[in-house]
């Protein structure tokens, strides 16, 4: 298989690459991986419960002492102590900074549990993003299809693969109705946007905005019982309103077909009683007058 058709890890997506670490820490992967799996276990235990019950329950179970107990009961004792010691004592604070949770009130006592939920969600989500990015490289396209790939991957992960963890991660980034963007989403969107947004600052700002909107959309969708498709449509509409995406191109290639489609839709709107809007009505008045003049 040619190298350009391979899957590859994307280091930029992994938050631990942004966290200071000991260059001699050979057990690092194990130390970061085990807490993620334990948190995923906790979330699986809460499957089926509505988020307003599951989220506080998860925070409670992931508070300092119970989490240590969870590690000890669910993993082999030697590993758990090492993992717990390496991870919760030295990694949570840098992760909290990397996820931007310091924007919240530092007296908020759930921050540590929120970090653990976000870390577990990242462990689950990032490989899907890596797969999508690899396939984008196999066959690059216009901004619309690339960005839609990003949204589709996020929504599929959140609905089909890890719905419990996805909604708890979104809840972890939200306090009192105020949300934060999530670094893995931001990094993912930034990589997707890279070929289409050459200005670094603008690309970063767009990715951040899309990431923030994704968090809010996932929470809203969960509350409203919306489906994955609605989430993607919402994100596409938002991207269009931000100017990240150009308006949807018409697929009719020739002008005659395009005009015929538009006129047919106007005819249909009349039949089903949809208002065309004042500006369209004005133009139709002019067209009618033109035609009457031509015929008269």
């Amino acid at each position, binding site marked *: *298989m040619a190298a350009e*058709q391979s*899957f590859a*890890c*994307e*280091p930029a997506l*992994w938050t*631990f*690459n*942004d*966290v*200071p*670490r000991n*260059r001699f*820490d050979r057990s*690092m*992967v194990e130390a970061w991986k085990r807490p*993620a799996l334990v948190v995923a276990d906790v979330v699986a235990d809460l499957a089926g419960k509505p988020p307003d019950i599951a989220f506080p329950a998860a925070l409670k179970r992931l508070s300092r002492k119970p989490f240590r107990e969870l590690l000890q009961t669910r993993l082999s004792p030697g590993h758990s102590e090492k993992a717990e010691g390496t991870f919760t004592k030295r990694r949570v604070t840098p992760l909290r900074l990397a996820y931007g949770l310091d924007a919240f009130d530092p007296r908020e006592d759930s921050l540590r549990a929120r970090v653990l939920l976000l870390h577990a969600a990242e462990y689950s989500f*990032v*490989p*899907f*993003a*890596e*797969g*999508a*990015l*690899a*396939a*984008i490289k*196999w*066959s690059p*396209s216009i901004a619309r*299809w690339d960005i*839609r*790939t990003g949204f*589709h*991957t996020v929504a*599929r992960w959140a609905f089909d*693969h890890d719905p419990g963890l996805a909604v708890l991660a979104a809840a972890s980034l939200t306090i009192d109705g105020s949300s934060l963007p999530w670094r893995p989403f931001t990094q993912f969107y930034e990589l997707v946007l890279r070929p289409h947004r050459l200005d670094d600052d603008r690309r970063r700002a767009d990715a951040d905005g899309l990431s923030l909107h994704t968090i809010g959309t996932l929470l809203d969708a969960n509350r*409203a*019982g*919306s*489906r994955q498709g*609605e989430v993607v*449509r*919402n994100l596409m509409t938002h991207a269009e309103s931000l100017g990240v995406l150009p308006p949807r191109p018409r*697929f*009719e290639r020739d002008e005659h*077909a395009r005009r*015929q*489609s538009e*006129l*047919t839709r106007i*005819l*249909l*709107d009349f*039949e*089903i*009683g*949809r208002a065309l809007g004042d500006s369209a009505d004005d133009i139709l008045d002019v067209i009618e007058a033109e035609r009457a003049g031509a015929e008269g």
Partner: protein
Amino acid sequence: MPRARSLPETLRPAANYEWAFGAYYRAHVLQKNRADVEPAAYVLKILRDKLGDEGYFDPDIAILRARAEHLYGRTLIRLGAREGRDILVDLYQKSTRLPVDGRLDRFLSDLCGDLSNIGLHHEAITTTESLIGRAPDNDVRARRRGNLAAWYLQRAVAHRAGRRDAAAWSDLDAADREIEPAIQTWDEDDKRRPTRTTRLQLREALAVRASVTVERSAVPGYGGEEQTRAMLDAADELRRLLAESLTPPRDETYLQVVYRIGRLGIYHIRTAAHRDGTFAQLKRGRAYLEHAWRSTGNACVRPWLALDLLEALEVCAAADDPAAVRDFALEAIDRLTPQCGSDYEAVTALAESL
């Protein structure tokens, strides 16, 4: 932050399953392009090579492999390659050997839409009947009954094209029997807890019922006051559904919308023909059908749309523009042959018009 080169840069160095899903999602988005699905076919070809044939026997990736194969087959059909249909037929046969679970059922439910598209009506119907028996809850059961009604409707169209009138009536009756409980379920759901999803499902079920009614008007034996009234009601239903589904936020797929426009179009054509409608009504019906046909782009298309547009052109244009009828028939044959095969009833009926 400078890093020692020897340290790992990922926590998931071999997440093959998730990577393959990510690539599949890329392909899934690319195949939504109504103008060009070559890039989707390219990604899917790489992906299916990676997953390999042995994927069918690994339960973890068997369904993903099957989904990639499904999308690849459909994409090839849309590119006009007959190989795509062979892939779907082969996939259906292989899928019967996979262990039954919820994931397989969801896949089969999706596959049945394309089995119906390629003319494997019996397979789509019997598979969906089994899926209804295994539905985990009322909503899934209602969705599958709605699908079953649609597959009966598509088979009725094939019977109509093959001039098997009694079989067509029988399938239309079966479609009506299946769609009514689905409508009832979604209606109750929508009254109990209205969401965009319940509204969408209810609209789709109502659209299937209206389509069944409109399809009846194509089969010899149609007529009488009751059926005429039902046809008028179906047209009103289609107008109401279109008004709702075209108003943002739009939840329907473009295919759902254009099929409703097409059904409203053929309603106008047949009403004008049966009841001394005006020339304007004929032109309106033709415009709707042409719009629906064009809007399907390169998608696998329901054969009724080709048959009904041909009928509209024969009514509206045969006298003064016979070339329009012939050109469309050739275009439709060219499009439907890779999808359904050259001996499929709708293709044969189109060829007879030449």
